[in-house]
Structures are given as structure tokens and as C-alpha cells.
């Protein structure tokens, strides 16, 4: 995997980690509810695990498809899928609700998995992972794991930093100004990634 690819994967990881809807805000809320920094930190592993799981599943599915399908077909298929999903995100607002405020670690991981999947977190990464290929299943699975790992590490770093800084320093009032519409940016990023897949 090339350095550019790794950097883009990490950039998307940071972008996903930045989004309050992907989990750091939940960690802060749980910390405030329990009045404990430990609760903030304790919420992060399940959140990151759920996100990574969603990304990994998407990448692995496409890796499997690539073994049996010509590369161009996969590229166009992915482009259509990712663009379409971006457009759908742009047009349709949803009110996801799978849990409440009282959650176990597994429920939190499940919530994070579903949030990442519903937002198309893995789909956004697909076009980046398509470059350089034509290898055996082993290479594909190794690349898939690397891609998911790099993405997740960046996501963890940003999410953990934000959760701790907001909990310790800024307070949730920062949300009123700083929570710009990431759903919009997210949809645009998906469409952009889809276009990239079609062109490369």
C-alpha cells in the first residue's frame, strides 16, 4: 500500500473521529452522567471497536468481490454505490436510535457499528483501497487489515483527544458553535470518493 493511500486513510480516520455522531460525544455524555473521566475513557474502546468492525466488514466484502470480478467493474460498481449513498445521505435525514443513555460496552460497540454503517464510513474508504491490486486473497486480506488498522488508529487518536478535551476543558457548550453540519460534509466526501473511484 502506498504512502498516499495510507495518509488518505488516516485523514478519513481523523474526519470520522471528529464527527460527534461517531462516538466521542457519547463518551463525554457518559462521563458527565457518571461524573468520571474513567467513564469517558472506558467508553472509547467499544466505540472505536464498533467503528473498526463496520469498516472492516465493508472492506472485506469488497475484497472478496474483487477476487472474482474484473477490476474495472469493481471500480465502477464501487463508484456507483458510494456516490449513490452520498446522494441518499444528502437528501434523506434520519433519526437513528438504537440505544439510550444506559449502555453496556457491547451495546455501545453495537451502536457505534450501526452508526458507522448507516453513515457509510467503510464505503468512504473503498475507492482509496482499490488502487494497486490483482493479488491473491492473502494480500487482499492483509491490505484490508492494514487499511482498517490505519483508519482506526487515526480515528481513535482524534476521538480520544476530543472526548478528553471537551470533558476536561471545553464543556459541551462548545457544541452550540462548533458542531457544524458534518452530515453535509460527510455526504459530499462520499460523493467525492465515489467520483474518485470512477476516474482512477
Amino acid at each position, binding site marked *: 500500500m502506498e504512502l498516499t493511500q495510507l495518509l488518505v486513510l488516516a485523514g478519513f480516520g481523523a474526519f470520522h473521529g471528529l464527527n*460527534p*455522531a461517531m462516538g466521542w*460525544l*457519547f463518551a*463525554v*455524555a457518559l462521563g*458527565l*452522567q457518571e*461524573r468520571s473521566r474513567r467513564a469517558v475513557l472506558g467508553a472509547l474502546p467499544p466505540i472505536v471497536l464498533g467503528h473498526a468492525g463496520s469498516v472492516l466488514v465493508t472492506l472485506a466484502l469488497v475484497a472478496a468481490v474483487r477476487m472474482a470480478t474484473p477490476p474495472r467493474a469493481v471500480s465502477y460498481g464501487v463508484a456507483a454505490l458510494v456516490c449513490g449513498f452520498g446522494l441518499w445521505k444528502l437528501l434523506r*435525514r*434520519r*433519526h*437513528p*436510535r*438504537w*440505544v*439510550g*443513555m*444506559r*449502555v453496556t460496552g457491547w451495546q455501545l460497540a453495537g*451502536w457505534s457499528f450501526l452508526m458507522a454503517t448507516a453513515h457509510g464510513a467503510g464505503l468512504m474508504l473503498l475507492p482509496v483501497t482499490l488502487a494497486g491490486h490483482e493479488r491473491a486473497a492473502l494480500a487482499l486480506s492483509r491490505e484490508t487489515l492494514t487499511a482498517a488498522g490505519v483508519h482506526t488508529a487515526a480515528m481513535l487518536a482524534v476521538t480520544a483527544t476530543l472526548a478528553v478535551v471537551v470533558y476536561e476543558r471545553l464543556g*459541551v*457548550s462548545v*457544541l*452550540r*458553535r462548533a*458542531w*457544524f*453540519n458534518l*452530515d*453535509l460534509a460527510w455526504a459530499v466526501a462520499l460523493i467525492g470518493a465515489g467520483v474518485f473511484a470512477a476516474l482512477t
Partner: protein
Amino acid sequence: MLIQPDPTFYPSAREAMRAPREKLAYVALLDTQGEGRPDGLATVDLDPDSPAYGTVVGVHDMTVPGDELHHFGWNVCSAALCPYAPHPHVERRYLVVPGLRSSRIYVFDVKDDPARPKLVKTIEPEVIFERTGYSRPHTVHCGTDAIYVSALGNVDGDAPGGVFMLDHDTFEPLGPWEADRGPQRLHYDFWWHLGHDTMITSEWGTPNMIEAGPDLDLLVGRRYGHKLHVWDLRKRTHQQEIDLGDQHQMALELRPAHDPTKTYGFVNTVISVEDLSANIFTWYLEDGVWKAKKTITIPAEPADPALLPEPLKQFGAVPPLVSDISLTLDDRILLVSAWGTGELLAFDVSDPLNPRQTGSVRVGGITGRAAHPGSPGTPRNGGPQMVEVSRDGRRAYFTNSLYRSWDEVFYPDGIDGWLVKADIAEDGSIALDPAFLVDFAADGRRPHQVRLQGGDSSSDSYCYP
């Protein structure tokens, strides 16, 4: 779709207290003339710097008569910031207004011209009946994932009453909320402890028990509601029943602490069949079990039977008939409306199991007919009823009409509608503002629920302390 969160959303009640002062109030008006005139939604100017301060600046008449508008609410509110269902880039711009008698629901858009709300959708009764199995929508709350509406009964006007949901975007009824209601049958109000995934519901009576007016046989037989129900807000299942005692008839308004880490709240019961008193109970969580304790008693006041309406003559006393309560956003001051005696009381509830009275004002009342300081020579009828506190906790606005058929029983000479304001001091004492008296006598309709532009103390819920 907004780029930043709606500026009227606040992560916590504490921060909502720093919101800019309210400039408009929306008031549900009830027609009582029986001349085929519809109910209305009035807009009142609350900006002291405006020349129209304290006057009605617009009224929207409903499309058909006979709705009996009740406790309306916003499409979305601060709960949109909750971390498990975040969607803060929506707008608080629609008022969802239920007709209690007609089972019709109106949706008004207040964005373009806040003083003149525009009707954008009407949900007809048949749609509510068919989709939810409920009738008589009463109270609307913006939830994290939907708009929640309480309903007093089923389509036949009998039990069970319950809660149904409206879609956030389309306002289409989604169906009944309860997955397992357990022993719950009677229903009135609902609200929640979001931090604990817990819903609380209260009990008045079914439509057939209340629509003709208060029924003395039902009252003496202790058949009106006197319980609270505790629910799992996620699983929508009944968890626990708290009986306040069957002498305490009609458990109405629920005011949970706004701080989501706290596990207590307040409910009023209208009348005790033992001594005609009204009571406030504090519910609280202890060792995993929800309990309730009577913490405020407001006694009946002796009165000359000649001055009393028919059903009260035999008692020689005016019951306070507490019909509404409102809690400031800092969970410190509880306002209590005694519609019978014409008194608005204030209590410091910082220690929720030991409230301390801090203030009282009088206007109206069954026998008192106290005048408003803005027009000292005019006796007033009706009494403090729906009370709404501003977000900063400094002003309380209240109206004087309860419910048409009940108005007639307790104020048989009719009610001339008014909306007044009490200022709340730092120490919890209250004083009527002589300069604020909205008199609806000329309109002829009676004001019921008040909502403040941008939110108030009983329209939002918060996920952060």
C-alpha cells in the same frame, strides 16, 4: 438544513438559562360560545422594548370549531443534541397543536413570520384513530427520535390511554408507543429522565370520565387516576406502578428534574376526597426502586356557601384545585397553580423532599375574585392555571382556563380570559407585574396553554448535566 445547530438548542438546562429573553408567547385559545367559532392560536408580544408589549399581535383561527386545543409543543428541541440520536441541524420551527376534544392535530410553521404562525399540516382524527388506536391527544413533547404525544383514551373514549409518536419530518402518526403497558390503563401526562432511559406517566381519567365535567360519583368512589407509572424508555415496557393513595384524585402534571443525572421530579394531585386539599408529591429513585412522597399540601379555604358553585356548597370550602406546576431550569423553584383559590404559589425545591414556600400571589379564585394590580377595580374570575416559566427562571406567565366543561362547573358565571405575568426574584419570592395583563374578554375565547418562543421550562429535555 442548518450549518450550525439550531441556536435555541442547549446541551444542558443550566446553559438554557442563559438564553436570550423570550420575545413572543404562543397561547392556545378555547372558544366557549358554542356559535360555531373555532379555537385560535394567539401570539402575544413579550418584548418590553416593543410598543406592542403585553398585547395580542396575531390570532390564527383553526379551520373548524370544537377542537379544545391543549398542550402543544415543538417539533424538535434540545433533545436533538443527545449523543445516541444526534441530529442538531434541524430547526425548532413547527408548533404541534393537539385538539383534545376533536382529536385533530395542527402543525404550524413559525419561522418566516413568528408573530403569525402559518398552518402547514392538519392531521385528521381518523388518521390518528387508525394508526394509533388512541384518541384525545393532550400533550406534545419533542423527543430524541420522534415527536411524542399523550392521548387520554382509545377511539371509544375508554381506557387505555397512552402515548403515540409522530414522525419528526413528516408529522405522520407512527403508532402507539407502548410495547407492554402492564397494568397501566388511565393516562394523562408523560415526561422522562433521559439520563436514565426512564419515562414517567400520570393519570387523570378517560375521555368518557371527564368530557361531561367532573363526576362527583367517580370522585367520591375514588375512580379518577391516582398512580404514576414508570417505564423503560428504550424497551417501551412498564416497569413499576406508584400508587399515591386513592384519596388523592387526579395525578396530573409531571415535572422531572431537568438535570439528567438527577432522579426525582414532582407531580400534582388535584383534590383529596378526605379534606379537599391539593398535594404535590416528589418521586425519587432509591436503591433501584422508584418511590413517591407527599411533600406539599395546600389546604382548602373555608368560604361562605352562598358564594360557592353548586357542587361545593355542601363543603363550605374552596378546594385549591392545583391544576399545573412548573419547575425552573435550575431545578430550584416550583410554581404551583391553585385554580380554585386563585393563588400562584412558589416553593424552593432545592431539597426536593423538603420544599419550602417562598412566595404567593393571588388573582381570580372561585370566591376570592382577586383583582390584578394592573386594573385594581376589576374582580377577576378563573384562576392561575397553565403556568410557564421563562428559560432564565425570572418570569412566569399563566392563564386562567382549565377545560371547558370543568370551567362551567367551578366558574358557572363563565370565565373572562386573561394571561398575566409574575416576576420571580432570586430568593424565590414572586410578584405580579402590574404592567402585564392580557385581557381576552374582548376576543371572548379563553387562554389555556402558553409556549414561549425558542423554548421554556417545560418544552425541552437535556442529555447533559
